[in-house]
Every structure is written in C-alpha cells, then in structure tokens.
C-alpha cells in the first residue's frame, strides 16, 4: 500500500504539470470562444461550437449541462415542497 501511495503522490506531482497545461488550454479556448458569436463575451453556445469536433468533450459538455438543468429543477421543486410544508 505504501508503494501505491507513493505512486499516487508522484502521479499527482506530474499531474500538477498536467493541470497547468489544462488551465493554459482552457484559457486558449476561452480566447477562441470570445471571437465566436458575440465578440467579447463567452456563452455556452460558443463552447459547444468549439468542441463539436471532439466527441468525448461534446458528450461530456452536453451531459453536464443537462444534469445541471435537472438539478436546478429538482432543487427548485424540493424547495417548494419544503416551503409548502412549512406554511402548513
């Protein structure tokens, strides 16, 4: 177990470089998204347009946004139930 823990630590150190790379590329993507559609602003449609060629990222973005909508709806419904319960 100790050996695997060491592996994890080193894995994370090299992933620090990887995370820096990912943030850099996220910044580049933001820059590109600014030029699409409405200039100067980044909107969700621009991001979806940018990843349309990459199936994994496209599917992930779609899933995340759909889930987020569902969560918002569920939370709203839950809060309304709670509210109705308190009033009664």
């Amino acid at each position: 177990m100790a050996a695997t823990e060491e592996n994890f630590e080193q894995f994370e150190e090299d992933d620090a470089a990887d995370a820096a790379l990912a943030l850099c590329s996220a910044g580049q993507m933001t820059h590109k998204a600014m030029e699409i559609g409405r200039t100067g602003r980044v909107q969700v449609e621009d991001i979806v347009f940018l990843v349309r060629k990459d199936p994994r990222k496209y599917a992930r973005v779609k899933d995340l946004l759909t889930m987020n909508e569902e969560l918002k709806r569920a939370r709203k419904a839950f809060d309304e139930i709670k509210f109705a319960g308190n009033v009664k």
Partner: protein
Amino acid sequence: MEEILNKETDHNNIRALEHLKYNLNVSSYEEERMDADDDSREASLAIEESIKVEVNDDINFSTDIVDIKQEDIMDLESDIILPQASQSQNSNPPKQKKESKSRRELEEEEREKMQVLVSNFTEDQLDRYEMYRRSAFPKAAIKRLMQTITGCSVSQNVVIAMAGIAKVFVGEVVEEGLDVMEELGDTGPIQPKHLREAVRRMRPYGAIPSGRDYRTHFKI
C-alpha cells in the same frame, strides 16, 4: 481511462463503461454540488460504501432525469441511422414505444452492470475509481481565469462546461501519456517526459487548443 480500470473486459463492457462514465461522472459532480456526505469525503474507510451508495442513489434519484438524456442521445443517433429509419416508418408508433422502453431498460441495465463492476473492484481499483470520480477543477479558479481573459463576467453554466472540458482534456493527455509509457517500457508513475511526448503527439490532430492551427491542411 478504461485501460486503467480493467484490461480484461470485453469490448461491450468497455463501451458500456464509457457510456456510464459520462452518465455517472455527472452524478459525482452532483454530489459535490449538493454538499452531501461531507463526512464520507474525509473518512477513507467508508469510501467503498459511499461509492456503492452513490451508484444506488443514481438509480433512485435520477429515474426522472433519464428521459431527457435519452432523448438527447437518441437525437444524435437518429441523425446517423437514416437509411434504416425509412424502413421502420411503417410500424413507427409501436416501435417508438418499444424503443423508449428499451432505452430505459438499457440505462437501467448499464447502471446495473456498472454496479456489478464497481462491486468487483479490488482495493487499488476502487481507490483509483474514487479519485477519477471525485476530482474536479475548482470552479472559482476557472471563473477567475475566464474573467481575467475576457474582461467581462461569465455565467455559471460556462464555468461548469469549461471545468468539465478541462477534466476530459486531462484524461485524454494522461491516456496518451500512458500509451507513451507503455511504448517506452517504463512502469510506475507517469513522468513529465511521457506527458510532453503525449502533448507533442496530440498537436497535429488539433487536440491541443492553441492560438495557431497546427493541423496540416492539404491544399491543391
């Protein structure tokens, strides 16, 4: 990522795993957002149970959510299988009902398969799977980065989408790095040289977003 999890599964399972990755990735995200189970985050002994509970909660909680996602998926599929659609137009209504039922069944089956798979993980695999599900980019940092670049505020959905994309990007680079490592015959943790080689390989395919277009466009 599937190489890490299980090299011996057959291709059907790998495909199902990928589908479920996308579905269940989101559920781990939802757990973080709802800030439930703060205790389980710290306790490392309860991890196994929490993952099983998470998978169970998936089934209980998201039966309503399943409809919309499947419609999305079916829309993408129906674009591709046009030639077969013309044949099935004769018996469309009953077939659509069957298809919607089988979609739900497929979802349920996939979740069950995922449950079985996770329950058979070794300790090591369980740890790695938990890391995979629970890791994420901090939304505050991404929001700050994007606002610095754009100069104007960005909406929350954009931050969420960008965080997800960044995570998938890290996954892709790491997978490529693992391939490089195997080719060189090294073992153990990935070294920066593997990652650098991985990035170098991915550039021609336009997988690394930079200001310049590295793809070679052939012109006549």
